């Protein structure tokens, strides 16, 4: 019986998701024009669903103070108030409004994850591109350095660095970004190696182009697609890193609401069958799936791969 009820709700959720995705695609195609419109109109439903989710998250993140019924950090009631009309998702261990914190969490979490991932990609890609393009000792040196860094378990490395430099949001972003950038470096280097052997790069070299032009104008446009695909996955690994670090007591500082830490703070509840921690965890999972749906679609479009 319970299983049937689950199936019922799953079916309804799926139906609503499909309808919403379809609706979003129709609306999006209606308000855009040109190439974009054509692309949107033909986007698969999974991708439009992903875009819808990302769109909603962005709106929520930007308009958080307008949407949230209560402030992010203020204690507004007693602790653990159940779901009610006033507190939609109840209150947390300190009596802060859960729903409002979820909304502010969007802003903080997505912001931090995006900044971290972007930074990791900046560092990793720049060095990866350099290593593969220049080759020689630079490539050897950077690759060995990355080997060494990857040989140190990332969580423990992060733990060490955060303990040394403190746990402000800025250091958190920097540390995770630096550690993550080693993975990006590897990918960027591998992809670039595939590009630098192309004749057009040889032609550019023979033309006497400098390194900067080679990398920014000739190589970069050709390596963005796989990097973007990795971006989607790395993006969600940042949430994981943050919540694993908050498990070890080094995550984002309270009272800032972020989903990774909120999962951690409320995780114990799940062992009593309380679904509260599923909310932030689900929010992360939904975003991850959404981002990857869109990335998959973009990759498909970019490569023209017919699977």
């Amino acid at each position: 019986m319970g299983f049937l009820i689950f199936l019922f709700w799953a079916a309804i959720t799926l139906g609503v998701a499909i309808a919403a995705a379809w609706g979003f695609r129709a609306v999006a195609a209606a308000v855009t024009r040109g190439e974009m419109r054509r692309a949107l109109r033909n986007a698969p439903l999974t991708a439009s669903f992903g875009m819808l989710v990302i769109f909603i998250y962005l709106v929520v993140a930007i308009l958080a103070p307008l949407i949230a019924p209560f402030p992010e950090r203020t204690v507004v009631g007693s602790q653990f108030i159940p779901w009610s009309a006033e507190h939609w998702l109840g209150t947390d261990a300190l009596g802060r409004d859960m729903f409002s914190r979820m909304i502010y969490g969007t802003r903080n979490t997505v912001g931090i994850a995006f900044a971290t991932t972007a930074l990791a990609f900046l560092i990793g890609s720049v060095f990866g591109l350099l290593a593969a393009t220049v080759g020689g000792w630079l490539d050897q040196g950077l690759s060995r350095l990355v080997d060494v860094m990857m040989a140190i378990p990332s969580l423990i490395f992060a733990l060490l660095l955060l303990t040394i430099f403190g746990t402000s949001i800025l250091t958190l972003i920097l540390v995770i970004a630096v550690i993550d950038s080693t993975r990006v470096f590897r990918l960027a280097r591998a992809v670039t190696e595939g590009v630098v052997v192309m004749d057009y790069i040889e032609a550019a070299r023979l033309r006497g182009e400098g390194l900067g032009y080679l990398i920014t104008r000739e190589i970069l446009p050709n390596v963005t697609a796989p990097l973007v695909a990795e971006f989607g996955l790395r993006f969600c690994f940042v949430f994981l890193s943050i919540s694993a670090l908050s498990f070890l007591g080094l995550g984002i500082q309270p009272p800032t609401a972020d989903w990774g830490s909120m999962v951690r703070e409320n995780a114990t509840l799940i062992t009593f069958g309380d679904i509260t921690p599923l909310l932030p965890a689900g929010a992360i999972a939904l975003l991850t799936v959404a981002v990857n749906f869109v990335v998959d679609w973009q990759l498909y479009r970019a490569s023209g791969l017919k699977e």
Partner: protein
Amino acid sequence: MAHIWRMIAQRLGFGLLTLFVVSIIIFGATELLPGDFAQAVLGQAATPEAVANIRRELGLDQPVYVRYFDWLFGVMQGDFGTSLAQRGRPVSEMIMSRLGNTFFLAIYAAAMAVPLALTLGVLVALWRNSLFDRVANSTALSAISFPEFFVAYILIFVLAQSGYFPSMARMPAGADLGEKLYRAFLPALTLTLVVTAHMMRMTRAAIINLLASPYIEMARLKGMRPSRVIIRHALPNAIAPIANVVAINLAYLITGVVVVEVVFVYPGLGQLMVDSVSRRDIPVVQAIALIFAAAYVLLNLTADVISTLSNPRLMHRT
């Protein structure tokens, strides 16, 4: 074969170099951590006198480089020193039982995760773009985005509270294999769920990458079944990327599972490492860092050797 041995020897050489640099980084980082063992172990009760006395007793008042070279010299003779906390107890002895536990859990989880991931990966590649594929893919992405401790708690709620499996994976001395497997099931399952998704996605990608190859079309035009096309024709050529992702995940199972160890009270190396870092017990931190780095180096090397062995072009040169 000779070139494989040469490659292995060369990579091992680089591996040693890596270990050396890792030891410097870890030593330096531990040194940069605020406070030292004496302060950490005394905690709130620290007085300057007691701290100074502990430092003197353990030689922590020596300059950094002296301590590093003492340590390095010892290691080169196979002596990892003694723990600062458990004086008289060699680090190697302290680590040994936990190392066994860590390997046991890693192998246990890998034994479940690797076949599962490869099978699923092959299946979703076979039925690509089907409903099964989409469901598996979305589930995998969701699974990846759940923190491990959260997965662990859900499993405890579902499987331990109902009494099927113990929520604590402590290992009684002298437990037989069956009991060990039973007690460590939940942590192993947690890790399985955590790593399977990644390996599955990579397996799928590696296989699908090959499906556009002319030899795959050829196999299909020879009238081979889709399953045979995937397993017999695509899979052998996808071994290199798959071996790579498996190696990365195995390394993770050995080096990255501190959170699962904490949740299931499993005495593995990760917990020991984190504890030792927080107590600044440098010899232990160093030894474990070396083990982790060596695991990483060796697994990657193994993956590369497997890639080479699986590639006739590298194995049978004309």
